[in-house]
């Protein structure tokens, strides 16, 4: 391998499913985009014209690794994926852990770009640089768990890593995800439906090659320093002991729960007790594992011993599932959350749109806006686990009301009636999981996120993280109000910090939990820069990599405007968050203020060098080397994008 590709495999694989051909090109021309997310969105921008729709064969689906995948860099198992999103028609961007990303590097490729559409179900087999498109007629209709087992068994090699879709992706459910191995998800943005639209059931990869770094001793020194930092963090201690559901007491204390479709921000005492993390771990956890090269290992393996789901054994069910299936639907039963999560994983659908669609139905039913006959005779009342599971099944298989709900809650409300729209919680057309009326920086990061909601591309968690090291947080973030969740002051700066950090995470292949997104004593920009330089041999400063991250964000903004027409009007919280005061609990009486939100948006746009419509100015794009994007923005700005 040439030294210029240190840290990389050096190759991008292009697969055309229409012509059943596979070719590769060197990474040259894309390396300034770092890897993973950065390279992925640049490929998307290069390959897609605004008039392409998500299920067109012309849409492309990009899977990307970064220069850390395959090395001993901590928590370096992350894989990124990008496509035009069926949910928003803008940037579809997702990220998952597991073991696929390093295996792809060992097989000789940094990125895989899927184009076209197969004339029958196929799967892609990548084996040490050799690529074949194989018949998947026997796999079509199988769950993701079965698909993973069958492929490994057929080749007789447990070292194979897989991506696959389930029935949701096959049936073009807009919220379909792509499962990595069995229980990690490229969750948001409906990328599983894009895969289904291409008749691509799975990708299997096996590689025996290596990843080399430019300066091994320097690289190991920073790896060791990073690993030591995880021993110093109280936040990580709690995360390791209790997984992400360690957040339950804190979120309950601050009022950050999406109770009954976000009607309230706090949960009843009996629900908080049912979701006590220590009791859940004692009752259900058999063991805990980690993704590739992860010293934290946050993934619980659960077993349900008794009750209606007895015998279920599965990996996963993190805080998001608890908030979605427990709090949002008013079901105070963690076993149900495990069951619902495993159903979603097996059938390849993201937990967020499923939970939001069901919560919306339950609230509309409560308000008398829909009747039994609208939902196939079901009685969708809060807290009914049986109805929730039946609605889930209907969504995955597009049966009856499932046909409507499978479109995502924004489109479902369009179909069901004007008066149901207020209760459809989404950002830019994508179903919302994030509670908003309790934390301003978090809300800003969620609402301006280019992929349509989501808290992993700029939303800070430090505002309500009581265990964080105060001195270090102030020093790193430069925002004294970082831990004042209801203050609007300085929150645009917090969001910019994490917009850059999280983009570097997802471009290098490092989990965001392993960096100072999660705790100020954890590795930040300087450690990521040292990792990058020692691995690749390129001498970048912290400022260089931050600029690279801003280049990505600005290109995403231009993509979103060209493809979906997104601008300022799409950066607001849900109507409920601005109109209804929180009815009870720690943030009782609070709501987001439209005027203050506008002031915050103005400051946020101005800080980024964007105009008051939220679009990058020509001079900002030129300063980032994005002249082509500035030209495109001018060329297409007057055209109608409602294809």
């Amino acid at each position, binding site marked *: 391998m040439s030294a210029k590709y240190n840290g990389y495999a050096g190759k991008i694989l292009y697969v055309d499913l229409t012509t059943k051909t596979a070719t590769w090109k060197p990474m040259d021309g894309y390396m300034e985009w770092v890897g993973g997310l950065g390279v992925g969105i640049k490929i998307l921008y290069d390959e897609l014209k605004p008039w392409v729709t998500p299920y067109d064969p012309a849409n492309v689906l990009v899977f990307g690794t970064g220069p850390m995948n*395959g*090395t*001993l860099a901590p928590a370096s198992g992350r894989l990124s994926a990008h496509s035009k999103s069926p949910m928003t028609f803008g940037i579809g961007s997702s990220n998952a852990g597991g*073991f696929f990303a390093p295996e792809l590097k*060992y097989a000789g490729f940094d990125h895989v770009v899927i184009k076209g559409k197969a004339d029958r179900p196929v799967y892609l087999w990548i084996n040490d640089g050799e690529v074949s498109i194989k018949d998947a007629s026997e796999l079509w209709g199988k769950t993701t768990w079965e698909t993973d087992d069958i492929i490994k068994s057929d080749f007789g090699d*447990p070292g194979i890593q897989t991506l696959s879709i389930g029935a949701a992706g096959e049936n073009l459910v807009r919220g379909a995800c792509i499962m990595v191995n069995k229980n990690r998800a490229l969750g948001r943005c409906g990328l599983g439906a894009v895969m289904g639209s291409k008749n691509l059931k799975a990708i299997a990869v096996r590689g*025996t*090659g*290596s*990843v*080399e*770094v430019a300066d*091994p001793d320097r690289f*190991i020194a920073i790896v060791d320093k990073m*690993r030591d930092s995880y021993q110093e963090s109280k936040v990580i201690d709690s995360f390791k002991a209790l997984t992400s559901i360690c957040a339950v007491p804190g979120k309950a204390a601050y009022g950050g729960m999406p109770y009954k479709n976000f009607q309230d921000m706090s949960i009843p005492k009996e629900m908080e007790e049912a979701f006590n993390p220590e009791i859940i771990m004692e009752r259900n956890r*058999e*063991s*805990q*594992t*980690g*993704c*590739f*090269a*992860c*010293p934290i*290992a946050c993934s619980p*393996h659960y077993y349900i011993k008794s009750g209606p789901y007895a015998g279920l*054994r599965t990996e996963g069910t993190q805080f998001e599932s608890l908030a979605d299936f427990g709090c949002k639907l008013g079901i105070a039963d963690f076993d149900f959350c495990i069951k619902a999560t495993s159903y979603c994983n097996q059938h390849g659908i993201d937990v967020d749109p499923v939970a939001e669609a069901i919560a919306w139905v339950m609230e509309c039913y409560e308000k008398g806006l829909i009747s039994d006959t609208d939902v196939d005779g079901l009685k969708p009342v809060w807290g009914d686990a049986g109805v929730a599971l039946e609605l889930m099944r209907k969504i995955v298989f597009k049966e009856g009301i499932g046909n409507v709900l499978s479109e995502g809650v924004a489109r479902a409300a369009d179909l069901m009636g004007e008066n149901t729209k207020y209760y459809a919680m989404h950002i830019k057309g994508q179903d919302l999981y994030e509670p908003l009326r309790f934390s301003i920086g978090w809300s800003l990061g969620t609402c301006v996120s280019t992929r349509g909601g989501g808290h992993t591309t700029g939303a800070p968690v430090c505002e309500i993280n009581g265990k964080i090291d105060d001195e270090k947080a102030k020093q790193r973030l430069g925002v004294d109000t970082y831990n004042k969740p209801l203050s609007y002051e300085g929150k645009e700066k917090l969001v910019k910090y994490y917009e850059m950090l999280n983009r570097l995470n997802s471009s290098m292949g490092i989990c965001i939990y392993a960096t100072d997104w999660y705790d100020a004593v954890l590795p930040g920009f300087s450690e990521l820069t040292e990792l990058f330089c020692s691995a690749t041999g390129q001498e970048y400063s912290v400022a260089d990599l931050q600029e690279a991250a801003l280049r990505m964000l600005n290109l995403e903004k231009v993509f979103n405007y060209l493809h979906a027409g997104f601008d300022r009007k799409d950066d607001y919280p849900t109507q409920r968050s601005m109109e209804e005061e929180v009815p009870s609990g720690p943030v009782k009486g609070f709501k987001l203020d439209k005027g203050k939100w506008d002031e915050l948006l103005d400051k946020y746009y101005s800080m980024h060098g964007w105009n008051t419509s939220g679009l990058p100015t020509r001079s900002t794009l030129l300063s980032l080397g994005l002249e082509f994007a500035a030209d495109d923005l001018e060329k297409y700005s007057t055209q109608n994008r409602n294809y």
Partner: protein
Amino acid sequence: MIITSNNCTGCRSCELACSFHHKKKFQPETSSIKVVQKPKSRSIEVFDIPNGSNNRCDKCKGEVEVLCVKYCNPAMRDELERLIKEL
């Protein structure tokens, strides 16, 4: 030699560290240790003779410490150390 453990997190850092000892690059296929995920636990195999592309474990000759143990999670470290010593 193979052991099965519930304390192993399956992260494969040991494989990476081992291949780095042998080759100064990251290539699990050349490692002297192999971790396989089982339904309820992980199996950890250490090769005391060469096994295909897997190198023989030399107990990290020339290193300050045994690297697979160094990069193992604290709950598993003692079990792994015993396994290496027993080779």
